[in-house]
Each structure stands twice: as C-alpha cells, then as structure tokens.
C-alpha cells in the first residue's frame, strides 16, 4: 500500500495533467455509477449511465485505445442507451419514485458489494503494487484491424453469428402473434 502511494505521488509529479484529469473523470464516473444504481427514476438512471459510458470512453483514450473509445461512443451511447430509453417508453416502467426495495435486500447487496470490492482491491494492490503503464503513442487502428482479420478471425466470425442470432432471437421473442 505504501509503495503504491509513493509510486502514485511520483507519478503525479511526472504527469500532472493526466493525473488531474484522470482523478476528476474517475470521481465523476463513480458518482454517476452510484446514481445509476440508486436513483428511483428509470430515465434518470439511463441518463446517468450515459455519463458513466462517456467516462469509460475517456479512460480508453487515456489508455491509448482510440478505436475502442470511438466504438464505445457509437455502440453504447448511440445504440444501447437509445434502446434502453425505448424499453422504458414501451414498458412504461414506473417513471416515478416507486423503488420500494426491501431495506434488508438492499443491505445484503451493499454488504456483498463492499466485501467484493475489499477482496479485489486487496489483491490488485498486492499484485500490481506500482506497475507503471507506459503509453507513448495511441494504438494504431491499422494494427488493430490487421489483428482482428488475421489472428482473431475465428472469434470475430463467431461474434458476427452471435449478433445475427441475437437479432433473430429478439424479433422472435418480442413479436406479437
């Protein structure tokens, strides 16, 4: 833990702007994620989800994966959230404050979440104490596409078949007979 803090403060001296932006965006993401799982209004939850997803796209930029960041914006914010809003519209899912979850269930869920986080945080800090990420330049999209269409061609085709199956399945499940 102390090694991590020392490495973090050394890193802070080296990359001031990156660390400040990372901190601000991470705090915003955590607050927005908290609102997604606690707000009573379904539409507000979907809109807070947009904040989290944009934050994730920014983290991808920090990590140099620009193509993944653009895909995140296109697929998640462009399609998935719109799909959620359509779902809310079609099910008229209780727009108002109805979220009357039994407090016992909520307490148990909170205990599970906190326990899970403590275990993960302990093992992450213990394992990758001050491992440094060196990101000199963004990953080139040409390299990514070469890799998809050579080394990862079989999983790529499997994902396309999965998407087709999901499309047909969604139509079959949701259509009116």
């Amino acid at each position, binding site marked *: 833990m102390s090694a*991590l803090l020392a490495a*973090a403060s050394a*890193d802070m001296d080296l990359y001031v702007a990156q*660390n400040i932006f*990372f901190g601000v965006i*991470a705090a915003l*993401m955590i607050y927005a994620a*908290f609102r*997604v*799982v606690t707000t009573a209004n*379904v539409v507000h939850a*979907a809109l807070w*989800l947009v904040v*989290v997803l944009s934050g994730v796209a920014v*983290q*991808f930029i*920090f*990590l140099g*994966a620009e*193509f*993944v960041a653009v*895909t995140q914006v296109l*697929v*998640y914010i462009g399609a*998935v959230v719109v*799909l*959620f809003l359509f*779902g809310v519209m079609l*099910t008229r*899912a*209780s727009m108002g404050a109805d*979220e009357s979850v039994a407090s016992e269930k909520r307490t*148990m*869920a909170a205990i*599970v*979440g906190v326990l*899970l*986080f403590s275990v*993960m*945080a302990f093992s*992450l800090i213990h394992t*990758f*104490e001050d*491992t*440094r*990420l060196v*990101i000199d330049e963004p990953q080139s999209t040409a390299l*990514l596409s070469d*890799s*998809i269409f050579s080394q*990862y061609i079989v*999983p*790529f085709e499997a*994902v396309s078949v*999965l998407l087709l199956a*999901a*499309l047909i399945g*969604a139509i079959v*499940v*949701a259509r009116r007979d």
Partner: protein
Amino acid sequence: MLLNQFLLLAAVLFCLGVYGVLARKNAMLVLMSIELILNAVNINLVAFGALNDDVGGAVFALFTIAVAAAEVGIGLAIVLLMYRNRRSIDLTQVDLLKG
C-alpha cells in the same frame, strides 16, 4: 500512469454494478447495472492490453462490446414480453418457478 488506478476504478464500477443487480427490482435497472459490470471488464481488458503492449486487449474489448449489444437486445425483448404478459416488470413478482 499507474496500472492500479485503472484497475481500482474498474473494481469500483464492477462492485456498484453487482450492488445494482442484487438490489434493484425493476428489470430495466438490472439490465443497466449489467452494462456497468461489462464496462468495468472492458477497462480491465484495455488496461492489460496497454500494459503488455498487445493489441489483443482492445480486440477482446470490442468483442465484449458486441456481446453486450446482443445481450441488451435479447434482454429488452424478454422484458417487453414480461411486460406484455404480466403488466409489470417487477422482478420480485416473477416467481412462478418458486417451489
């Protein structure tokens, strides 16, 4: 940048998603919490890809995005069917299989 700051951020998002899946009653909100979990996993994949200077992390993050899109499509179809049959998407009322 340290690897751990990304991994810990992803861990926080993951645990918030788990909390949402367990505590929420509304099926739409449970699907949104699942999206939080999948996004946390994506941050991890891309971070480890950047650590090893390997393009595989980003490729698998793209696969996860595709699978998540498929999951949302099917999930929303199921929620719509549930709403049509029961006039409610409250998950605590869907207990026909309970003995």
